[in-house]
């Protein structure tokens, strides 16, 4: 009998513990396991790290207008106002078809190039349950050079002026302030300057972001090309910059040895020597509607 009493007593104690249970603890237990909340967001601030694309996409039905500008090289001296007299500009409209798919169309003044791209966010970085260490986006673009600087005997057809770029963007947000991306890249050019130049170029990009404050981050980016053109003294592109976020705008200030803003040019056809002073000041301004 004593035993039973003891058991009953124990159960009562147990019960009283239960009823004292903190209400917030009950809510904690009742919280449904959510899948969307574990997705790591804002790996990069903008859709570009600096010159090249980041894994980030525009969201569903958002239209972004991007103006990118690169001035001449700083080492042109005072006569060219350290490059500010020259300019190369790209206008683009980029639209979020869905949260995971962005389509873009742009026009660069350099070689009067039109470009169009699709970027698809394939895998997202996740924490907690079903965690996944990196985010992966796929990028494909096509560009056509329309400048009429060809030899009249060597008139290029539309197809001959085309080039294609494919990239796999793999990024990880290590913590709140540091993100890093590796970007294997494949470039195909339908026409090259001389026979010895490769039509296919493989490259790999490295890009990082270090947040200095909630709205300001320091970015850097480097593309290493494995195959180089013989007709030009091609150099790997290197860029440093600052991202400043101001509500609906993202403002990027850039120092880069590349003067162009589309992949096939700054990765494969860049001739600037960063440490020789061929540094182009530039910016990307985006406005989202």
């Amino acid at each position, binding site marked *: 009998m004593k035993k039973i009493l003891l058991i009953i007593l124990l159960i009562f104690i147990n*019960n009283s513990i*239960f009823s004292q249970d903190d209400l917030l603890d009950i*809510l904690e237990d*009742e*919280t449904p396991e959510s899948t969307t*909340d574990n997705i790591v967001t804002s790996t990069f601030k903008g859709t570009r790290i600096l010159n090249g694309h980041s894994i980030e996409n525009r969201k569903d039905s958002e239209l972004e207008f991007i103006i990118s500008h690169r001035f001449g090289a700083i080492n042109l001296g005072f006569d060219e106002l350290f490059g500010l007299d020259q300019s190369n500009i790209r206008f683009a409209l980029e639209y979020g078809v869905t949260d995971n798919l962005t389509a873009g169309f742009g026009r660069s003044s350099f070689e009067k190039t039109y470009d169009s791209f699709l970027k698809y966010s394939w895998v997202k970085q996740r924490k907690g349950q079903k965690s996944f260490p990196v985010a992966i986006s796929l990028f494909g673009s096509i560009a056509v050079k329309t400048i009429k600087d060809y030899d009249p005997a060597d008139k290029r057809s539309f197809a001959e002026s085309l080039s294609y770029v494919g990239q796999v963007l793999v990024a990880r947000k290590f913590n709140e302030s540091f993100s890093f991306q590796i970007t294997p890249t494949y470039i195909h050019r339908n026409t090259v300057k001389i026979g010895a130049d490769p039509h296919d170029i493989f490259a790999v990009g490295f890009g990082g972001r270090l947040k200095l404050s909630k709205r300001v981050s320091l970015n850097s980016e480097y593309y290493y090309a494995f195959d180089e053109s013989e007709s030009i003294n091609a150099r790997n592109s290197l860029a440093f910059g600052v991202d400043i976020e101001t509500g*609906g705008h993202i403002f990027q200030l850039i120092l880069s040895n590349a003067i162009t803003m589309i992949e096939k040019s700054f990765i494969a056809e860049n001739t600037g020597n960063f440490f020789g002073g061929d540094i182009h000041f530039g910016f990307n301004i985006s406005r*989202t509607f």
Partner: protein
Amino acid sequence: MKIILTLISCFLWVSITQSQGKYLTKNGAITFFSKAPMEDITADNNQVLSIIDTDHSKMAISILMKSFLFKKALMQEHFNENYVESDKYPKATFKGEILDFNSVNNVLSTKQVKGVLTIHGVSKEINIDANFIKQNNTILVSGDFMINLEDFKIKIPAIVAKNIAKKIKVTFKFNHKPY
């Protein structure tokens, strides 16, 4: 045999007392509204958890910040990354007491709710009026109140000061069912 029966009845009793007196909702609605010269901002969250302990007149609310949905995705990103810092402070909570709860019945009546609201890692005592009604074994709680962003160390930089109000109106509606 007797022992077993006693035990079973005890367990039953335990489980009955446990479920008595608590009312819960997992899809409570909270909307916040910011009125500013440049643009009005609204966000809805329909996955708010709220519980009422009728035996002790207590109430607790848990809000997942990332579940607030905005009209513009960019606003939502800014809300989570720059203002409430959802990665660091994923939840807002409230824990408090309903004064004079025992007089809640099937006629809509206003009661004072007093407790501690925690947002962005900052806790503050608040005292609000909420409407209560008990109907068909559910307890409906609704109302609105203002919060001052500065109280919760949510800073608005000068550059966007015209876009975001310093005081935000919060509207809530919870339909609690027996837990």
